[in-house]
């Protein structure tokens, strides 16, 4: 190392450190912030979701097509579930990314796993979003007893 440092002149030590090459906002920091922000929001979303679905009314026994359709007839619940879907999956996906980074030591499995993760997250988000928005609570030809009350109107 001393080959390039001439003995009598010591280079400015602060110029040696360029490991990051990154200035300003950094994805790791954003991801860290996001985990916390989304986590805080998810508490409300998920607890609300669990409360309505598992606590009120008949609990898990009461969940059926009619129940879901009834909820999504209301834009409030549409937005609620949409947010939960996006935040939950991105939060969870990002969390699993960290886990993969931690345990997959060599780069090939790391890439493969992260690829799989990305596909799973994207597919699930797209699918879920489509379902929420293109959902028809009163599909034609369905057995009427299975449909929510709104369809009778």
């Amino acid at each position, binding site marked *: 190392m001393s080959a390039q440092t001439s003995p009598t002149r010591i280079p400015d030590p602060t110029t040696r450190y360029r490991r990051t090459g990154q200035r300003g*906002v950094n994805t*790791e920091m954003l991801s860290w912030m996001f985990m916390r922000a989304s986590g805080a929001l998810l508490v409300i979303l998920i607890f609300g979701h669990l409360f309505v679905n598992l606590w009120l009314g008949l609990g898990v026994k009461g969940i059926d097509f009619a129940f879901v359709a009834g909820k999504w007839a209301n834009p409030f619940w549409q937005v609620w579930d949409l947010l939960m879907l996006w935040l939950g999956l991105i939060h969870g996906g990002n969390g699993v990314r960290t886990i993969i980074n931690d345990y997959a030591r060599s780069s090939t499995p790391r890439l493969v796993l992260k690829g799989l993760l990305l596909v799973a997250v994207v597919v699930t988000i797209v699918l879920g979003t489509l379902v929420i928005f293109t959902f028809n609570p009163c599909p034609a030809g369905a057995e009427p007893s299975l449909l929510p009350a709104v369809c009778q109107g």
Partner: protein
Amino acid sequence: MTAVAEKTPAPEASAAEIPSFEVTLRINRFDPDSGKDSSWEDFTVTMHGTDRVLDALHEIKWHLDGSLSFRRSCAHGVCGSDAMRINGRNRLACKTLLKDLDISKPILVEPIKGLPVEKDLIVDMDPFFESYREIMPFLVAKGQEPSRERLQSAEERERFDDTTKCILCAACTSSCPVFWTDGQYFGPAAIVNAHRFIFDSRDDAGEQRLEILNSKEGVWRCRTTFNCSEACPRGIQVTKAIAEVKQAVIRGRI
């Protein structure tokens, strides 16, 4: 192998006639030249009241098996040579009194985790010091050098007092689960030493250090598992220091 040795009475310490007792150390031995993986070996020695794990290791090395290798120097917790895993936790052997351990069972002694083991309890410290060097662990003061000392109020001095205590023993870094799986992580000790300068009112390179620690292998890897804080033999609030660095990065960036 089990071996037993008698020890001549230890230096008389303060209290009354000190009772002696038998204690077994189960040590994780490793010699790369043997071609064998590491294995456990038991040693039973007779020790006394105020003896520490280091004294027991010495007793073994001096009277039972000279090939047992470990680092040590000061023997009172200030030089940072002898961090090791004792009963599953990182401690300094010279600061761990035998009487504070459960001696009815063998005491497990292993090298610290996450750094390459060189022999027995000795690990390669180079990766550790490499990370330390990368956070610019020195004062960088711009501007005219004053003729007398730089002034600093007692409060400003107090701001980073805790992190000046670090003896670079690596007990923290090698207790960190993130570091075990990702040796690229700077690790708590490097962050502690960055903290010591970032919060020094005389220093002008805080920005740059924050930038270094804002990298992929920087502070964001810390998952607040607190192993480091529990392990630090100097009682440094390591996780707190890391949290303060995180806050500083956020405040400086947004």
